[in-house]
């Protein structure tokens, strides 16, 4: 399912742009402002910087929620849910795939005893280089978030 959403993002550049542009812009603006306040201001202004960082993180969550909703609606529009829910895919796996990116799925794929139709494979079984690509976006967020947090003090 993660691969499915990766294919979807790849096939729609406006969505990818929309998903990355605004959070990046806000992170840059608020990050620099927070850093400025942290370096040049009193204790009160430092607290204000933390508040700004919170606003920034809220935007990340907001965009994440937007992306999740869009992916869900995409399934509805494509009338694909009927096909999805007659596969061994469990609802929680589907919800997780909408929300989470598996950091390194490769070990899960090689667990002995997994056979055709094993529902546990459906979420984590990625290969063919797709995993590396799908990781790039969350890694970018992780790095940006880390940087923003440090900037905010």
């Amino acid at each position, binding site marked *: *399912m993660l*691969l*499915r959403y990766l*294919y*979807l993002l790849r*096939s*729609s550049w406006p969505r990818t742009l929309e998903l990355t542009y605004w959070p990046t812009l806000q992170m840059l603006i608020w990050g620099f402002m927070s850093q400025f306040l942290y370096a040049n201001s009193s204790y009160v202004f430092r607290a204000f910087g933390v508040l700004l960082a919170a606003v920034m993180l809220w935007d990340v969550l907001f965009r994440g929620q937007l992306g999740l909703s869009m992916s869900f609606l*995409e*399934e509805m529009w*494509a*009338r*694909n849910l*009927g*096909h*999805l*829910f*007659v*596969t*061994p*895919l*469990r609802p929680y796996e589907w919800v997780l795939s909408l929300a989470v990116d598996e950091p390194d799925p490769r070990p899960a794929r090689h667990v002995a005893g*997994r*056979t*055709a*139709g*094993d*529902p546990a*494979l*459906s979420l984590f*079984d*990625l290969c063919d280089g797709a995993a590396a690509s799908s990781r790039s976006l969350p890694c970018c967020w992780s790095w940006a978030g880390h940087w923003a947090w440090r900037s905010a003090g």
Partner: protein
Amino acid sequence: MLRNDGAMQRCTSLRGGRSPPVMRHIGAMVELAVKVENLVKHYSGTVAVDGISFAVGRGVTAALLGGNGAGKTTTLSILLGLLLPTAGQVQVLGEDMLRHRYRVLPRMNFSSPFVDLPHRLTVRQNLLIYARLYGLPSRGERIERLAEDLQIGEFLERPAGKLSAGQKTRVALAKALLNEPELLLLDEPTASLDPDTGDWVRSYLEDYRARTGATILMASHNMGEVERLCSDVMMMKAGRIVDRGSPEALIDRYGRTNLEEVFLHIARGSRTELEPVS
């Protein structure tokens, strides 16, 4: 037109080298693929399925026939576990569908022209995702073989939303056959197809059942298709099974010349005195 070379070998290898499916099914001729008892489904006051009972043996092609709103699609949806019944028991491939749905789902599949694949993804991407969801080994190889069998190779790299109705149906069939299902549920498998493509799909389904010994349960409005493919027909009306038998038996029973006339006879209420059969 159909290419069946090495088909049996393919089946055996796909199922991990066990005995060929045809032999397994012949050995298990008395086993039931589907068993439904007193199935009831209400939609906020509307009775969609009204206490039907039936069983379908393994290796059989059966059909649910009936007018619009007769309860065919609801019955199929319950068999797939997409809907919960209001009351009744459903056993699929020997498992209780309400309790052990995930044991059965890898062994069955479904195709309908009314359920689509994501439009923006290419046919190959779509098939690859479903192959992963079914946890198939050697997915690429399996997709290539199906593409060859169903003649979809030329548009594997095309987005699913840009296919014609006939192409979409063949792709949906490829998706439904990815896991080589023991039970294949089809909702109007040849709806909106031209006669040539429709005939081709019917031939492929006949061949698939003969090759694998799979059970096929379909809902259809195409009487010619049902006469040709099915050995067991259940006539539904207002959520009930009002008659059942082979196409020949039904035609004889109603003194008609073909199944379409039998269908019209029942649908127009000429046989309202019929008690539901189980």
